């Protein structure tokens, strides 16, 4: 993705339309970050359209694949129970868009740790994203932790990653040490996937 080539203003009236437009956009070699972010933000969350993908797990947040974008992107829905949060992680040189479909999510940005990281990681900023907001991050911006800080409400978010990736690094906030993890899907296209391997960053 590079500078905006031809920035259209899209309005996605439904989740299906959002996916159709994404396929069209990503058919090009050049895709604009601003265009995709505006498109994601334009879709007004309608639970009826995504409830089938929103499978919650009691113990931790889940990743539920919605569309695999002909190999160009992965579109997935993440379900966060009360108090569920992610580790600090990077995005394996990919673009990451995150739109809130329900509830609120807190995003905390961190600086990359020094090569010989041995101190507390540095927080850059934090914000709470409201329903229908869409955030963007990539490795040059930094690392982040996403959490549902509510003790009473669940949260659901829609994520687009391009190119798709299935592993990333998680970081220990106290020391900056990183650890590679494989990511798995809790469900794909609305069907629960039972993985044989041990639980990972899924």
């Amino acid at each position, binding site marked *: 993705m590079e500078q905006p080539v031809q920035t259209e203003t899209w309005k996605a009236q439904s989740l299906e339309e959002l996916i159709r437009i994404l396929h069209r956009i990503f058919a090009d070699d050049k895709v604009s970050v601003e265009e995709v972010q505006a498109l994601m933000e334009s879709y007004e969350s309608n639970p009826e359209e995504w409830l089938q993908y929103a499978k919650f797990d009691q113990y931790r947040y889940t990743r539920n694949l919605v569309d695999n974008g002909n190999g160009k992107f992965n579109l997935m829905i993440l379900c966060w129970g*009360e*108090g569920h949060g992610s580790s600090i992680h990077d995005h394996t040189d990919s673009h990451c868009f995150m739109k809130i479909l329900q509830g609120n999510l807190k995003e905390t940005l961190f600086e990359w740790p020094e090569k010989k990281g041995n101190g507390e990681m540095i927080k850059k900023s934090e914000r709470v994203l409201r329903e229908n907001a869409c955030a963007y991050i990539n490795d040059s911006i930094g690392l982040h932790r996403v959490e549902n800080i*509510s*003790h*009473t409400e669940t949260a659901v978010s829609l994520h687009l990653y391009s190119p798709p990736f299935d592993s990333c690094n998680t970081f*220990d906030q106290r*020391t900056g040490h990183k650890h590679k993890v494989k990511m798995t899907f809790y469900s794909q296209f609305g069907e629960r996937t039972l993985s044989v391997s041990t639980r990972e960053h899924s």
Partner: protein
Amino acid sequence: LPAGLSQWFPALEVLDVSGTGLAELGAELLALPRLHTLLAKNNRLGGPGSLPKGLGQAPLGRSLRVLNLSGNRFAEVPPALLGLRGLQSLSLGGNRLHSIPPDIQELRSLEFLYLGGNFITSIPPELANLPSLSYLVLCDNKIQSIPPQLAQLHSLRSLSLHNNLLTYLPREILNLVHLEELSLRGNPLVVRFVRDLTYNPPSLQELAGRTIKARNVPYAPSDLPENLVRYLSLASNCPNPKCGGVYFDSCVRQIKFVDFCGKYRLPLMHYLCSPECSSPCSSASQSSTSQSESDSEDEASVAARRMQKVLLG
């Protein structure tokens, strides 16, 4: 709640009165024999009489499985709900609790307990007597230490402790073999060895007690005053497997760092019977630096490697 609720809807199984501003749930609830899920979050519950008396004795006491009282104003766990013997899931997140009552152990069927977002300062060891507990959330509180007894929660799969005031964990936590999720971020966990300043040398009574236990000196209740018989029964085994010793009141607290493949150091509190005693693989000397080095071979690290994945959150 409207009077006559149980007459109109006698077969009611799920009742959701969340976000309705209720200040109390009345006795109308008690006559709903099939109710298994009650959601009453984000209301104004918390004062005396928020829950009807006799909750445990009503048919509801056996049928209720899920109770969600999050986002209310409870300053203590309402005693009325401790009689809900069939309760599997309880949420009191986002209230004003300052403590957890030991009688929480009455909730014998509890599998899911959410207490995040309160003002809890300590955890009663009785919490460990819940045999089916698999998900325990204590995040966003003011907890300073975890009782080692919590390691008896054999069914525990997920433990949420983030954003508290923990400086270390008991080494027994490594015994939770089914634990898959453990969150510790936002705690002031020590990263360097903290020299314990308060080792009190053992009393003569303790030294005598240790010798009796260590040498298996036989005694019968008729040989000793009752208080000494009781004292001898309270001996704790030194956790150092190479030391057969016991201690009573006097022990050394030592923080040992367990390294997770060089990436994450977890401070675990050990209790040893004396400063001369040390965990295996540490040198015999008592120098603090050698004891604080990462330890890769003993059984603690094997257990630690198993938990490696869960700590990075």
